[in-house]
């Protein structure tokens, strides 16, 4: 299994944000994308996730077998938005994504336990604080299996305890042979992660 990005350029609104990016990741490897605001971190992640067309270059994913023919099928994309409905309870939200995304892994209860939200699974998502909402979104990564995690500022709104817990989850994912690309300006507590520094312009 290998995720290779070759000479990738991304644009947004007709403007070239970055160009000529190349990197390759093997199972167990993580890439931290750093850089100032507007450097194109989010655009890069969205392009890799297939939500934006690449201006040039390509993203290749190999060795995923039948289940994961390309990156889009093989990735979890965690953007700025949590993708949860405020009117549904935390459990209903997660149970929906578990069924819809397929490849179920942890049960909803176990995933909530892993992010430390097991007590409030029955509450509507709208009642939660910013940090709790983010942790629910992180629990989504756990309920269905994807080898590649694309994380855009995953720790925004998290306190120290939750950040540490999330680092632990990421390390477990890498140890299981997963791949992580995370855009962040905070150290994520991943010891041997590579770093891709994107400059503005």
């Amino acid at each position, binding site marked *: 299994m290998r995720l290779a990005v070759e000479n990738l350029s991304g644009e947004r609104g007709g403007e070239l944000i970055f160009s000529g990016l190349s990197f390759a990741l093997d199972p167990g490897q993580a890439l931290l994308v750093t850089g100032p605001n507007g450097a194109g971190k989010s655009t890069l992640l969205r392009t890799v996730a297939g939500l934006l067309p690449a201006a040039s270059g390509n993203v290749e994913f190999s060795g995923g077998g039948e289940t994961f023919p390309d990156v889009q099928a093989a990735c979890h994309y965690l953007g700025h938005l949590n993708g949860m409905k405020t009117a549904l309870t935390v459990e209903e939200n997660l149970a929906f994504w578990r069924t819809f995304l397929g490849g179920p892994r942890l049960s909803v209860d176990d995933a909530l336990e892993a992010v*430390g*939200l097991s*007590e*409030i699974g029955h*509450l*509507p998502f*709208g*009642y*939660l*604080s910013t*940090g*709790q909402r983010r942790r629910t979104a992180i629990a989504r990564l756990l309920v269905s299996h994807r080898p590649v995690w694309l994380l855009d500022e995953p720790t925004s709104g998290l*306190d*120290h*305890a*939750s950040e540490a817990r999330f680092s632990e989850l990421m390390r477990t994912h890498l140890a299981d042979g997963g791949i992580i690309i995370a855009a962040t300006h905070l150290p994520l507590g991943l010891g041997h992660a590579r770093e891709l520094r994107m400059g503005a312009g």
Partner: protein
Amino acid sequence: MNEKAVPRWTEIANPTRFLELAGAVLPWLSSAAVLVLAAGLYMAFAAPEDYQQGITVRIMYVHVPFAWLSMLCYTMMAGSALGTLVWRHPLADVSLKAAAPIGAVFTALALATGSIWGKPMWGTWWVWDARLTSVFVLFLMYLGIIALTRALDDPGRSARAAAILTLVGFINIPIIKFSVDWWNTLHQPASVFRLDGPTIDPSMLWPLLVCAIGFTLLFLALHLMAMRNEIWRRRVIAMRRLSARAAEIKPAEASR
């Protein structure tokens, strides 16, 4: 505020006090409603038939109370709206929100029974005359208020909006009441509440009044129950929000 100087009215304003009071009054109110309604319906069936309308006149004993209550309920809601806007009484909003669905049901029943009565009398289920139309508009207004009170999750914000809407819509109530006098309508004019006394025969007036009292008691009982539910509902929401916050604080303390 000085505890001693607080009159009774604000004492009921305390929701806990209100819940106790409602709990004590409700059984009596409900049983009174059932008894009076039973008596009223018995009297209605014992009353003589109308020489023109025959048996169908008995629909009057439910139709007229429903129609009266649809207006009474709205008037009460307008009072509650004033309570929300002027005195900021905490229970006024609860009262308004609880009354709206009940009022809508009574209005719908008034329309439905009127329609059933109208079919044999006028030969059609519905005509667009002033009385019927204005009551239909009242029904739409009830539904609008219900939609508005439920549109927002935050009770405080929806309260003022609903109160304003209710007060604006109150214009319709005198229109309904006097529509039969102002316009030439198919609907018969008022025969009970008139300046020159009721024109309806006492043998029909008494069952009608007993039925009306029975339905009013029923309305009051339903309204108290609905208010109680609404208070409980708000408490559940508050407690759930609280527990979400408590869950946030606990792990932070544990890790320290």
